[in-house]
């Protein structure tokens, strides 16, 4: 992707489950079985990645919507992180000018406004075990929907949903009311 194309990034939409919370956006990548948490800055940039909104426009929106400095380097930082998390159609290639921005420089920009460092674009991983621990056992089909396969959160796995394993780590199954 050229720098010009990178200026109009496009968010990936296929095979993603997106859940929006008041303070963050959660994204589960079905293709890679990875879960991500986007803070408001990263989420705002990601939501504007429609292939038609330029980086400059996004920077302006940062100011309008999040009261952040309209600084393109912030947008590039977010795009870089979103790209590394494979949440963009194509990873962005930072133009020469943007590539010069170091995290420290961005921090310096943000530090002019107290408290804003918390709004640095962040895309973090979610690694917690999932709700499958609610069941005494889980069928293999459920395992596909658990965020950290193939471990399946340490629960025994059975081939049939009407059965459960005798013990953790066991391979034998018995009727569910065991």
């Amino acid at each position, binding site marked *: 992707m050229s720098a010009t194309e990178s200026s109009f990034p496009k968010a990936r939409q296929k095979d993603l489950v997106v859940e929006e*919370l008041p303070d963050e956006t959660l994204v*589960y990548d079905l293709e890679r079985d990875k879960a991500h948490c986007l803070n408001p800055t990263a989420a705002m940039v990601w939501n504007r990645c429609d292939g038609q909104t330029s980086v400059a426009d996004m920077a302006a929106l940062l100011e309008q919507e999040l009261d952040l400095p309209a600084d393109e380097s912030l947008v590039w930082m977010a795009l870089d992180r979103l790209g590394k998390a494979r949440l963009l159609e194509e990873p962005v290639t930072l133009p020469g000018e943007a590539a010069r921005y170091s995290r420290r420089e961005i921090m310096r920009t943000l530090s002019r406004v107290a408290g804003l460092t918390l709004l640095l674009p962040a895309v973090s991983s979610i690694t*917690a075990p999932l709700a*499958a621990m*609610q069941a005494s056992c889980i069928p293999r089909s459920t395992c596909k929907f658990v965020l950290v396969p193939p471990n399946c959160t340490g629960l025994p796995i059975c081939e049939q*949903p009407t059965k459960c394993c005798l*013990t953790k780590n066991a391979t034998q199954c018995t009727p569910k*009311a065991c």
Partner: protein
Amino acid sequence: MLETGAGGLAWWRVRDTELAESPVGVDLQQAFRAQTLQSGLHARVLEEAVGKLCSAGLQPLLAKGWLAAGLYAQRGLRPYGDIDLWVRPEEHGAALEALGYPPGQQYPVDLHGNSPARDRSWDELYARARPEEVGGVSVQALGAEDHLYLLSVHMLAHGAWRPLWLCDVAAALESLPEDFDWDYCLSGGKRRANWLTTAIGLATDVLGASPGGLPTAIANARLPRWLAPALLGSWGGGTPYMHTSPMGLTVPRPGALWNALRIRWPNPIQVTIDWNRGFDRTPRLPVQFAECVVRSGRFLLGRQTATDPSLTSRRFPFRSSG
């Protein structure tokens, strides 16, 4: 907290406190996030599964996990392992076929072919069902009255060992629709009313649920003294026996025998339901002892095998995890 599925709820409680930044707080928040995403995954599964069932001319009833999660401020607060759907017994085979199992197991769906509510006909259940939108499809969900009963008795039938189940009852009580029909909910026999009153009493007394408009009979009911300690004991008691290895696997290892017997000592709440008793002041010890005798007899007769249908036949139909 995490093991019992209450991690998300714990996070919700501490999210605005200094504990939120602690390592434990971070773990709880991660659990909440993971559960929220799991809920999104389940929505897709449910939408697809319901679509297949409807295409096959079947009308499933939704209850428990997914429906219970909707009672909370955020779906991610209430985790569940699979999606519980009910179909009429005569439609169970067709429903399994529509979903592609056996042996495909395309979906993490627990498909029940028995009635989700004691003493209620399927026609009654469907008459009180209400539509629930899931993605692009509409599915019939158990009516509020029947769902409160199901949540209550499911919790009691499992010995109430998971705190989340009592939270479900409390959340259901605090979300009752204005036209909630208490007369219908409590009708159907003395035992039914006793179990429901007991579950509601636990939710109000132990969790501090504050539902409005409770009937006087429920509001004034007093729980038996043994009940709250039994509940708290089961919360701190670890994994219940039904989720552990069968006794037959333990007997050859004498060292493990004592512990195996200890964790199999019948839960007083559970035996009350299993033996179709009411929650009253009378001590549970005789019923617990009787349960032990029956289980031991069954074990000695070699009937407790992995495929023995009697393991499930005496149990109430609510008995399934999640």
